[in-house]
């Protein structure tokens, strides 16, 4: 049963005026897997999720969850799908427990089952101690955990989370991710996580899809995507030196296997078909350069992301806004 797709997205398209937010998306998500939908802000991830829940109508195409049409049978879809939105909101003057109770009533859970159910869920997400505080006093991490309890109230088969890790501290992040993993392993839920934070998602996802400008440009397991890059046989080296002069540039250009170089401030980004680190460091030492930064990019998700973004850029025309958000992504990596 694990291999039958529970979510099927076929040719899904959403256009706002002349801007296409989601462009002919085709995707299948299997029962019981954790799927990461990765992409920069504004790539169309949230729009896709809204269409899956029937909260906005697709311009073209359709999506099915467990065989139910997401647009026409949204009631059936929402009964088996839990959605945890970005920046999840609770009624701030109600306690965590009251918020959950309200959700349970909305879902038509019989009154006598509500209290034991809520107690169990609070225990599960580790929020029993704060259950009777007003949610306005909650920290971001607590809100996210209450959010998971909130989603689990209707015992969904599919859980969709939109940017769930934004704003969590490292410890909160770790706990949160292990909770998600637990839901997948122990409760056999299918989980769709959208995010722009590559590393966190990398740790828990079975498969990821990379989503840029409304297009899914790559989809598969992390290893698959990683090996795809390796077979393309290129290395990328970031190097920052003092001074950063043309003599050094000339040396690099003379190296065997060098395929491209770009200068970015005091940093060279060198693409090559071979590992050049040893030759370059030797040269730097003998010529008394000061080495400030050296980073070889490998087959990690960030690299995957970068490579596929480049491909997307080559293919399509880009607006300035999108470029800006991408640069920020790299900036965070370099820091």
């Amino acid at each position, binding site marked *: 049963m694990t291999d039958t797709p529970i979510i099927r997205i076929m040719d899904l398209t959403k256009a706002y005026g002349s801007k296409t937010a989601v462009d002919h998306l085709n995707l299948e998500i299997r029962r019981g897997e954790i799927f990461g939908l990765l992409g920069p802000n504004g790539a169309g991830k*949230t729009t896709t999720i*809204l269409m899956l*829940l029937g*909260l*906005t109508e697709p311009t073209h195409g359709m999506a099915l969850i467990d065989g139910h049409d997401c647009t026409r049978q949204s*009631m*059936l879809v*929402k*009964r088996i*799908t839990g*959605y945890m*939105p*970005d*920046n*999840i*909101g*609770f*009624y*701030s*003057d109600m306690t965590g427990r009251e918020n959950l109770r*309200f*959700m349970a*009533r*909305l*879902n*038509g859970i019989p009154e006598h089952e509500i209290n034991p159910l809520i107690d169990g869920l609070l225990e599960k997400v580790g929020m029993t101690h704060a259950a009777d505080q007003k949610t306005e006093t909650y920290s971001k991490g607590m809100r996210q955990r209450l959010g998971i309890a*909130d989603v689990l109230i*209707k015992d969904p088969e599919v859980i969709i989370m*939109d940017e769930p890790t934004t704003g969590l501290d490292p410890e909160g992040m770790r706990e949160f991710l292990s909770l998600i993993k637990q839901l997948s392993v122990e409760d056999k839920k299918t989980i769709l996580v959208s995010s722009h934070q590559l590393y966190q998602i990398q740790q828990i996802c079975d498969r990821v899809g990379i989503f840029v400008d409304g297009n899914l440009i790559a989809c598969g397991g992390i290893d698959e995507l990683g090996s795809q890059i390796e077979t393309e046989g290129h290395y990328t080296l970031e190097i920052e030196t003092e001074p950063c002069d043309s003599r050094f540039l000339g040396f690099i250009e003379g190296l065997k296997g060098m395929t491209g170089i770009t200068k970015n401030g005091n940093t060279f980004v060198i693409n090559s078909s071979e590992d050049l680190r040893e030759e370059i460091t030797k040269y730097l030492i003998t010529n008394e350069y000061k080495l400030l930064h050296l980073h070889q990019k490998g087959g990690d998700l960030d690299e995957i992301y970068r490579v596929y973004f480049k491909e997307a850029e080559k293919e399509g025309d880009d607006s300035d806004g999108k470029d800006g958000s991408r640069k920020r992504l790299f900036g965070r990596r370099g820091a």
Partner: protein
Amino acid sequence: MVKTAAGNAFSAAEGHNNKSIRYHSLTALYQKEMADHVTGKRFIIILILVIAMTIASVYGAVTGIGSALKDAAADPKASFDASFMFLKLFSTGGSSIPSYMSLIALIGPFIGLILGFDSINAEKNSGTLNRLVSQPIYRDSIIIGKFLASSTLITVMIFSTGIAVGCAGFLCSGIRPTGEELVRLLIYLIFTDIYVCFWLAMAMLFSVFTRHATTSALSSIALWLFFAIFMSLLAGIMANAAYPVNTEYEQAVNGLKNYDLNLNLNRLSPYYLYSEAGSVLMNPATRAINAVSYAQLVGALRGYLPLGQSLLLIWPHLVGLLALTFAAFTISYVGFMRQEIRGN
């Protein structure tokens, strides 16, 4: 054959299911809204407002009627109308205190506005609406539940103030209500209820279409001020521009048209519509609300209109107010159903 039977059974079960979803989600939303209102801080503001209004109007009415009686006793020739005294408790003010009727015409809308101005956009901004619409409930349950909860509260408030003023007036003055007076009072309170619900619907309309609660609060207060104060000025200016009445000749030619236009423009305002209907209901001596010619008055006897005739006079007002309320609610309903709700 078997297939169709199974299919029917399924759709019947589905139909039953949908009805129960509608029922329990609406109940849950209604209860939550009610609890929110009653335990919230703004409820205290409304309560203070209403209590102050009730006390002031009872005091004003009792002193007002008292001084009128004293005047009548001092001067036997002065005509004092002693019929429908109980209704006068609501329509009479003191020396500087407005009557219950004029107070509620002014303050009633505020209650509607306070209850409705942030009903949708505040939830949108706090991200709770997002969570609500992803539950297996019909989306219209949300806006219907909100409207029903607020209008229930309004109804309770209007009727309790009306009854409180009646009882307090009865105790202070000893004026006993007749059956007809009670019926007139009841109809008047229903009218008031619809009037305040119109403002609730208006505030909700703004809360659906604006992003911030402050914007919707300010726009609905602006609209209220416009109808309560500026509409009558505007109607006068427009009527005078269309049918000038500056000279005696113009007065003779345009007088009636000017008056009619002025009146009809004013009646576009729910404030005027409500006040006019209220004065007909609570003062049975009002026999007409439009201009009446001398010819029509020839041979007329001074007397009171029976309840049925009073109702006939204000029937269009009732329909108009109801229509305005439904229009405002429908527009916000449709707007809400078509909106795309995403996180902030």
